[in-house]
């Protein structure tokens, strides 16, 4: 429980970093955090963490409540399922999966706001989305050696 709460505080911290440090395109550091939490503590706990982190993200943006809850919990579900079925988890698999999930996340948010609100991203410059995804991949690459989820995950799955 203490670990879960400290990770939630970390969600606030990365959201602040995103808001303060990055101007323009921003990485999705919460997605990276959800991936590492799932790899470290297992799929079920990861999904729960994804739901809470998504709730915080949606609330901090103050628009629709739900898009990030679904995207982050599904990211945890997918990464947990992949982890269970892959024999060896390494930095390449991790990077590819984070890249894939970033693209799915961006598409989901795009569709979600188009369907469930009067907010449209049709005018949005694609370079912002692409730069954001590249930043997320870079963040996952940088974080991988420090967090090394494989070390702790053996008992979780």
């Amino acid at each position: 429980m203490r670990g879960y709460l400290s990770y939630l505080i970390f969600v606030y911290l990365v959201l602040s970093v995103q808001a303060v440090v990055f101007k323009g395109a921003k990485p999705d550091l919460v997605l990276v955090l959800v991936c590492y939490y799932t790899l470290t503590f297992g799929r079920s706990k990861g999904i729960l963490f994804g739901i809470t982190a998504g709730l915080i993200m949606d609330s901090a943006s103050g628009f629709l409540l739900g898009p990030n809850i679904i995207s982050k919990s599904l990211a945890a579900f997918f990464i947990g399922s992949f982890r269970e079925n892959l024999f060896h988890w390494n930095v390449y698999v991790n990077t590819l999966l984070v890249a894939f999930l970033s693209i799915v996340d961006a598409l989901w948010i795009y569709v979600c706001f188009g369907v469930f609100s009067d907010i449209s991203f049709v005018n949005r410059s694609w370079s912002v989305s692409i730069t954001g995804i590249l930043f997320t991949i870079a963040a996952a690459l940088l974080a991988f050696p420090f967090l090394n989820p494989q070390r702790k995950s053996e008992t979780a799955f």
Partner: protein
Amino acid sequence: MLKKKYVIFAIFLIFVLALLNYQSTQGISPFPKFLLYPLKLLEQGGSAVLRTAGNVVNTYIMIVGKEAENNGLRERIDELEKEKNRFVEIEKENIRLKNILELKSKRPDYITAAVIFSRDPSNWFQVFWINKGKSSGIGKDMVAVTQKGPVGRIDRILDEESSIVLITDVNSSVAVRLQSSRVEGILEGRGDDRCTLKYVSKEIDVKIGEEVVTSGMDNIYPKGLLIGRVTAITKEGGELFQVIEVDPSQDLNVVEEVTILKK
């Protein structure tokens, strides 16, 4: 057991989709205000910690390796440097506040001045949060400006905080006019640091560097504010209109204070 978990997760996802559908028909749910406080505290605390750390590092660099008899003088220089930095900061703040006061005296539609305390953390919206809200007389769709031009319009309002949707946000549309040709168009945000001017006929001769001002036709932004300059023009074959790229009149990433004007 695992299948039961899947079922619960699937039911939860359906519930969230139903919630999204509810919000699309009934309007967005009430904003949980408490979630803003950590962002506010972290931004203010973070700046203070960075300032203090910078001072400590500077002081350390200044002192290490110096002769003992020079320490007193070095410390004095250090103090004077700090004092100088403080004065530079105060001077800059003074200029910004003078600009706000100038705007206040010039504009009869002045409501209040506010400090930006946070930016939207996601990659999707260009939104600022300011430290003034309903209690300061702020209302929806009021306009945030600086001496250099419009910043955006008020969207969400709490008692002590409000959010501003920037002119560069994809949800922003401003009625504008090209200053020399007097042709009107709609300026829309792109989600990065530029805007696109739409609905200007291909027949119109637009020049790079031409100034774009608000036309006041949207009943939100006051007429005649300089909003940006033309940086690129695209005329595609089958299209009726040309697509004009506009660079905002100010770098919105470095705006610290804004003045709120009546709608």
